[in-house]
């Protein structure tokens, strides 16, 4: 396809004049029939790549995605962009709804599916009957046991790809070290795939770490930050409960418009909060890491981590939601001594002792269905013929890897030198020269003024609109 034609399509279909870094290159490689592994930072419009290819090449685009909430966000986003023939196959669908999607595959243009769902025989059978224009492995790093988000079900994707007749494949990820990249290509059996790698560095995001002594200090500092730094802000937590508590506290102690967002909310509430946030009706979102994956809001000025992220890869993803408009933005990690224990506790939840592994294998031998989260994970290994010893080793390796990731994160917090240099080195990239707008060195004040990130006056909360006026606004043309 001609360069002009692609730009024309970009303009008419999406209203953009230029591609974002990496998009054009990946699209042309795919159109030339290449498999591509694309490592593009968050906010570079990865979904536009497969949307555009899907528009040009006849057939169905299958997107393998690890999280149901992420899939729903992606379907909503495609709907928003005018793609109507989109569906998600998730475990949340009942039998009838799933059947209905499978029966309508020919009329669909995009299908989102979890790896667990993809390997179900009825799904594979139905997919073999339609032409696939592209197979997309989203969050492709989940395939690597060396990666932080390893998902055993991703290991089947190589074989499934073969079963589906080796369609053209796009592997997408925002962060992948060279080792993880190697793993992705090996597991998916695409050694010849083209690699398109862009830097994870986001120079317009100022990196800061604030060490506090107590939990109360941390709250006070959080309050100060959301009040003094330009809004909107996202504050990340690792627990739903804390998300709710601190959101309530901020709401009652400031005049800011604050909402909590986490997986415990109803789908309707999640939708409304996302939409309010996009419409600029919220100043602060307190959220677990589920928030933001499907969000494309360009003017987020600050991302605060109230709790530590799991690792540096997650951190880079999460702060990447700030400053997508290219304007200055701020990433602050709040750290109180002992915070790392929370990460360890969360890691503990996904671990298993040799005894537990042994016991679960016996459960499998007795042909009992998996009934805990852990046995769901282990089930994969048993059905694929792993031994107890192999699985135990695998789990021990994962635990060690997680402990190493945590120590790398702590080193980022404790470093006395340039934080960006530390991050870039972690991702095997060259470190840029440190400047005044790069990052906060130990002991320095936040240069809010010179970054142009001082907060303006607080927007007053709007008065309650009478119901008659709401109805008029919604349903009458000239209101």
């Amino acid at each position: 396809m001609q360069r002009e034609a692609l730009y024309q399509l970009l303009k008419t279909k999406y209203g953009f004049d230029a591609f974002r870094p990496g998009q054009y290159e990946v699209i042309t490689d795919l159109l030339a029939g290449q498999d591509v592994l694309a490592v593009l930072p968050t906010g570079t419009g990865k979904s536009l790549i497969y949307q555009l290819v899907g528009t040009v090449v006849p057939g169905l685009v299958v997107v393998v995605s690890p999280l149901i909430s992420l899939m729903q966000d992606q379907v909503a986003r495609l709907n928003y962009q005018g793609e109507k023939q989109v569906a998600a196959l998730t475990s949340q669908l009942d039998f009838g709804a799933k059947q209905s999607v499978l029966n309508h595959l020919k009329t669909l243009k995009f299908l989102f599916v979890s790896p667990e769902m993809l390997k179900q025989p009825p799904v594979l059978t139905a997919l073999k009957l339609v032409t696939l224009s592209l197979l997309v492995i989203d969050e492709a790093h989940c395939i690597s046991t060396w990666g932080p988000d390893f998902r055993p079900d991703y290991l089947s994707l190589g074989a499934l790809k073969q079963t589906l007749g080796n369609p053209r494949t796009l592997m997408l990820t925002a962060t992948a070290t060279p080792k993880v990249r190697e793993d992705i290509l090996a597991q998916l059996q695409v050694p010849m795939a083209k690699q398109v790698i862009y830097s994870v560095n986001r120079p317009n995001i100022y990196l800061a770490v604030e060490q506090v002594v107590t939990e109360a200090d941390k709250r006070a500092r959080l309050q100060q930050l959301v009040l003094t730094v330009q809004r909107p802000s996202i504050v990340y937590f690792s627990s739903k409960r804390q998300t709710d508590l601190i959101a309530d506290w901020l709401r009652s102690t400031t005049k800011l418009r604050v909402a909590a967002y986490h997986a415990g909310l109803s789908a309707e509430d999640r939708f409304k909060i996302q939409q309010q946030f996009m419409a600029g009706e919220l100043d602060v979102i307190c959220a677990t890491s589920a928030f933001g994956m499907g969000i494309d809001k360009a003017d987020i000025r600050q991302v605060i981590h109230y709790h530590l992220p799991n690792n540096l890869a997650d951190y880079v993803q999460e702060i990447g939601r700030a400053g997508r408009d290219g304007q200055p933005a701020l990433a602050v990690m709040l750290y109180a001594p002992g915070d790392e224990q929370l990460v360890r506790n969360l890691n503990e939840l996904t671990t298993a002792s040799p005894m537990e592994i042994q016991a679960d294998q016996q459960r499998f031998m007795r042909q009992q269905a998996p009934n805990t989260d852990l046995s769901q994970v282990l089930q994969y290994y048993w059905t694929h013929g792993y031994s107890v010893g192999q699985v135990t080793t695998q789990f021990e390796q994962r635990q060690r890897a997680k402990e190493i990731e945590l120590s790398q994160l702590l080193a980022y917090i404790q470093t006395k030198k340039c934080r960006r240099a530390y991050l870039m080195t972690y991702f095997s990239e060259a470190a840029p020269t440190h400047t005044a707008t790069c990052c906060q060195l130990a002991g320095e004040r936040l240069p809010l003024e010179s970054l142009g990130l001082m907060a303006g006056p607080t927007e007053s909360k709007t008065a309650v609109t009478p119901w008659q006026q709401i109805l008029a606004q919604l349903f009458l043309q000239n209101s």
Partner: protein
Amino acid sequence: MLFADYLLLLFTTAPRRPKALFNVLRGKRTVSTLFAGLTTGTLAYLDSWHGVPLTTFEAATQQLQSAGWLEATQPGYLRVTAAGVTEQNRLRKGLYLPTAFEQFQQADVRQFTAISQLALQVVSEAVHQERRYYPLTTDQHIQWQVKNWFRQWQGPTLGQQIYDELTAFLQTLSDEAAAVFAQSLTGFGLPGLTDQQLATQLDRSPVTILVMRKDLSCHWIAWLKQQPTATPLSALLQPFLKANPVSSSAWQTFQDYLTGQSLTEIAQRRRLKLSTVREHLLETSILWPDFPAAQLLTPTRIAQLSTIFADNPVIETWQFKTVQAELPTMDFFWFRLYQIMRCHDAA
């Protein structure tokens, strides 16, 4: 206010099985659940808390026990204490109490709520010629149904029609209720408020807002059903109305029975077990007060059973083993059917 507050109001000073109540609330339609609903007068709440997790329910009953408002009389039974009665009276004064939950038996309230929210969003965006927007739900099935409805009714006056219809409905409500309904809507330029946000604004609890919104859906359905002519919104509701509260399979069995077929004949023709046919008839007899239970029971059985329980007027305490001691050949079906009949008579 919490879920536990609403739950407390469903208990009485007579011991009740919380597990059965839980099954009523989440809409489990087994005969034993339905029977429990009948004897405790909680059938109107059937399916009204669909999807509530057992852990939430158990935490709430535990909380009520810790507060001293509920006590266990024997394993698996709870009753309201004297302090609990005082608390119930206090709650009844301040708590928003639903008044139209009987609609849960007459329509698929949940489905209609989901469909109507998206339908109103679609109309609102169309009125303002907005084609790019995030739909409230990505559920394909709901999207397809709304699409079909919209194709049928779209036109230059649809926005005005919806406006008029909703205005007429909201005028029948209190200002607070109308505000909750309108502010929770999603459409062009208005994402709508969450339950939490409405709760803060109205100084209520999020659970209260949730109950209010369920009740408002019920009121809306009741209102739409009364409209004399087909309107866009009554047409949207139409597929979700139930002719009767009985499940379609049980209703079919009942219709077969009315044509004079014996239970064995029905079982053979519909390839069901006899026990299933009997369950269908029990379900119908619980949910359909006009069920001819006396005719099915025959005067002989009624005479036998009424003799056995002549000394015990508290119908829900009757035990099948009392029957077995006197009439070892009588099937449980006849005992339960008689019990249901007497419950309806008492009411």
